[in-house]
């Protein structure tokens, strides 16, 4: 089984004939996707549809990860070959997306968060400059799941990125000169920052990490020119701190009331209740709303925090100018299993039940792909994309999951076969969407767990979890899957099974290709329509990065990805953990004991092109 790839859904011909016409309304031709990609010239962080740049990790505000470049296609991809490489000098998990603007490629490494600029105009793309922020070494002790960084963002001639020790830094994109830096996180409260910032309307949006350290989650907006804090919205606490005011109109009654961020917790527990913001932020310029998920409540042991634990494990829509909340929907009220709500929200215009709707598509940790009306927060559909034992579906009337009582973790006893496990049906690894197929390409895992609830002591700056966990492969024995999902029909189209969790991001291109990497180190191109493997290349270390595609100064299409195993799933290799303790790395070690036999540490950029 290891390394093998095959299809398990024989439904392809059926869906191709039926789903395609429905999934592609409004598409006049293959070059005019129905994505709500921002096009307003007033938004400098936005690339026009085909300029071949890649200015933010998700490529566009809609979080599509779709490149309209089509030089590399299904028939010539077999000739794809290595163009150049670059060693990052860092050997922890490389989760970032490179950026490309003009003739420069930028990449930010895991801790110590070195920012490199490579000159694409010269042979071999030599180093232009590097910027070393020298984050505090102690911050490595606050990274729950390896010392990763998910990338930088380009806007207004500046590169914005975050450091593990909680700084946001703006660097001149041409010279590498530091323009400003602002410390947002407090190490001694357990705060760190791993996410990629998003730049919207002259504001840099940054959220914190540390949901396993009793951190109080927030999203902060910084002035892109000065680094000064414009607003901060907490994920727990009184309405005033959460920036909930008269504009807040959530769809479901359970999200309405005063100071729910206090009253849905035991006394004072909201102060150390989690709800961190470490995923990707989306933005709809027409509705002028940003969207982002909030992470798990803390501690993991749910018996220690009775209540719905607002506003954790949900999604906020906010006004980017003021930060004021417009609506909120909680994927997992009183989350039981560390189902962070931070997975990406892809903003699409889709026909739902025959009606064109402005939707937000979200493959959630709890195992369901949600389609929400992004104007109101109403759930339009929610169907499982993995094996789920913890809930028996989502009630579309109330918006709540039907929980399975016997799977609820309890203090002092072990609950078995919790599926999906704590990393969820899918963790941070971002999906891609192709307007040509109308399908979402979801990299994810197939992992279940046993969990024992424990008492948890809060000691600031140390973990606050209260659980023993052991994870293992779900049904079928394979630990990873790559699923093409039709969000209109709300069902899978095809699925590729992988031996290890697919912890890399996905990239879709107008060449009808989809790219992703495996933890063994295979970088793969598959047909967007059939999932057929068309090309693969074995990189030096396992791949957990976000692949991108750009047009080089020579006019050719390139595909780039960072190799460098690690992250939560790869911590056993990146942190040289001992496989004899299955509870290591919050229980992920138990499912990954054989990973060190398949890959070793190493950070390297790989860039491919046709000859």
């Amino acid at each position, binding site marked *: 089984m290891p390394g093998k790839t095959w299809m398990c859904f024989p439904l392809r011909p059926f869906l191709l004939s039926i789903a395609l016409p429905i999934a592609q309304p409004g598409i006049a031709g293959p070059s005019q996707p129905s994505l709500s990609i921002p096009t307003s010239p007033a938004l400098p962080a936005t690339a026009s549809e085909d300029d071949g740049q890649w200015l933010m990790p998700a490529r566009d505000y809609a979080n599509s990860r779709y490149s309209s470049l089509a030089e590399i296609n299904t028939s010539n991809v077999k000739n794809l070959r290595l163009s150049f490489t670059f060693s990052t000098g860092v050997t922890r998990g490389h989760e970032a997306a490179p950026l490309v603007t003009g003739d420069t490629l930028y990449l930010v490494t895991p801790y110590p968060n070195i920012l490199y600029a490579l000159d694409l105009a010269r042979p071999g793309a030599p180093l232009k400059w590097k910027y070393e922020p020298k984050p505090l070494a102690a911050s490595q002790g606050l990274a729950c799941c390896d010392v990763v960084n998910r990338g930088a963002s380009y806007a207004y001639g500046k590169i914005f990125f975050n450091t593990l020790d909680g700084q946001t830094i703006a660097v001149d994109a041409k010279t590498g000169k530091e323009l400003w830096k602002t410390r947002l996180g407090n190490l001694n409260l357990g705060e760190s920052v791993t996410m990629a910032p998003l730049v919207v309307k002259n504001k840099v949006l940054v959220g914190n990490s540390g949901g396993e350290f009793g951190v109080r989650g927030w999203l902060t907006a910084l002035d892109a020119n000065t680094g000064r804090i414009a607003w901060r919205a907490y994920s727990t606490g009184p309405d005033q701190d959460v920036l909930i005011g008269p504009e807040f109109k959530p769809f479901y009654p359970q999200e309405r009331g005063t100071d729910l961020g206090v009253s849905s917790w035991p006394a004072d527990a909201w102060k150390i209740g989690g709800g961190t913001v470490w995923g990707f932020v989306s933005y709809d310029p027409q509705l002028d709303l940003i969207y982002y998920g909030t992470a798990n409540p803390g501690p993991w042991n749910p018996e220690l925090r009775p209540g719905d634990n607002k506003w954790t494990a949900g999604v906020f829509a906010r006004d980017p100018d003021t930060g004021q909340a417009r609506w909120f929907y909680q994927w997992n009220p009183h989350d039981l299993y560390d189902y962070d709500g931070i997975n990406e929200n892809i903003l699409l215009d889709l026909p739902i039940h025959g009606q064109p709707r402005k939707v937000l598509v979200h493959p959630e940790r709890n195992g369901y792909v949600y389609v929400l009306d992004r104007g109101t927060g109403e759930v339009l559909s929610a169907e499982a994309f993995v094996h789920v034992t913890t809930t028996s579906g989502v009630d579309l009337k109330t918006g709540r999951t039907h929980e399975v009582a016997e799977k609820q973790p309890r203090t002092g006893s072990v609950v078995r076969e919790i599926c999906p496990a704590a990393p969820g049906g899918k963790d941070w690894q971002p999906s891609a969407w192709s307007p040509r197929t109308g399908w979402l390409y979801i990299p994810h895992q197939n992992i279940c767990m046993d969990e024992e609830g424990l008492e948890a002591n809060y*000691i600031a700056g140390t973990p606050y979890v209260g659980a023993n966990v052991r994870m293992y492969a779900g049904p079928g024995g394979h630990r990873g899957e790559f699923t093409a999902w039709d969000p209109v029909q709300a069902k899978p189209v095809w699925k590729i099974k992988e031996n290890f969790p697919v912890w890399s991001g996905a990239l879709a291109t107008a060449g009808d290709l989809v790219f992703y990497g495996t933890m063994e180190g295979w970088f793969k191109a598959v047909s967007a329509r059939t999932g057929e493997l068309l090309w693969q290349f074995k990189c030096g270390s396992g791949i957990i990065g976000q692949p991108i595609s750009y047009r080089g100064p020579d006019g050719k299409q390139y595909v780039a990805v960072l190799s460098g195993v690690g992250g939560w799933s790869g911590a056993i290799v990146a942190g040289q953990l001992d496989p004899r*303790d299955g509870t290591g790395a919050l229980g992920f070690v138990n499912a990954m004991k054989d990973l060190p036999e398949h890959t070793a540490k190493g950070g390297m950029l790989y860039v491919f092109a046709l000859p």
Partner: protein
Amino acid sequence: MKILRGVWIAMLGAAALTGCEREERNFVEPPPTSSAVESLRLSDLRPGPSSPPPAAENSAYQENAYAISEGQRLFSWYNCAGCHFHGGGGIGPPLMDDLWIYGSEPQNIHATIIQGRPNGMPAFGGRIPDYQVWQLAAYVRSLSGLTPKDAVPARSDHMSNESPPTTMEKPSPKMTGSPP
């Protein structure tokens, strides 16, 4: 003239007073033999003639079943297990393997807990009573089989201890933190 002489006398007096404050110099430094310095050796490399390794301190804790079992309880209580889990590591390095970055002797582990370590280990000095630090050190050593088997606690009922440390197969320990 009188005034000038007075100034001279005052200046001479001031110079005499400050001149008496001389820096003290020890021309022969005493050899660094204090056990406090020796016990915190973090390198196998030692210049000069070979000497026996310093005696392990607080062996009373190291061979004491009660101390090790208390150490096990405190290991969870103070959230050590939050980073090192049950020896396999995660946020912090594994403790059940044979790689000791900052030394495997009890006094090394004691110092690591008290002082913290630069890459993320918090400094617990002043936050935990000293005897508990020694108990923790004893338990940490037991994770990789460095304490006598008969002193190590029996398995607990927790999920983590389905295979207790003492019965686990392990490679022969190589203690990089102390000289042979």
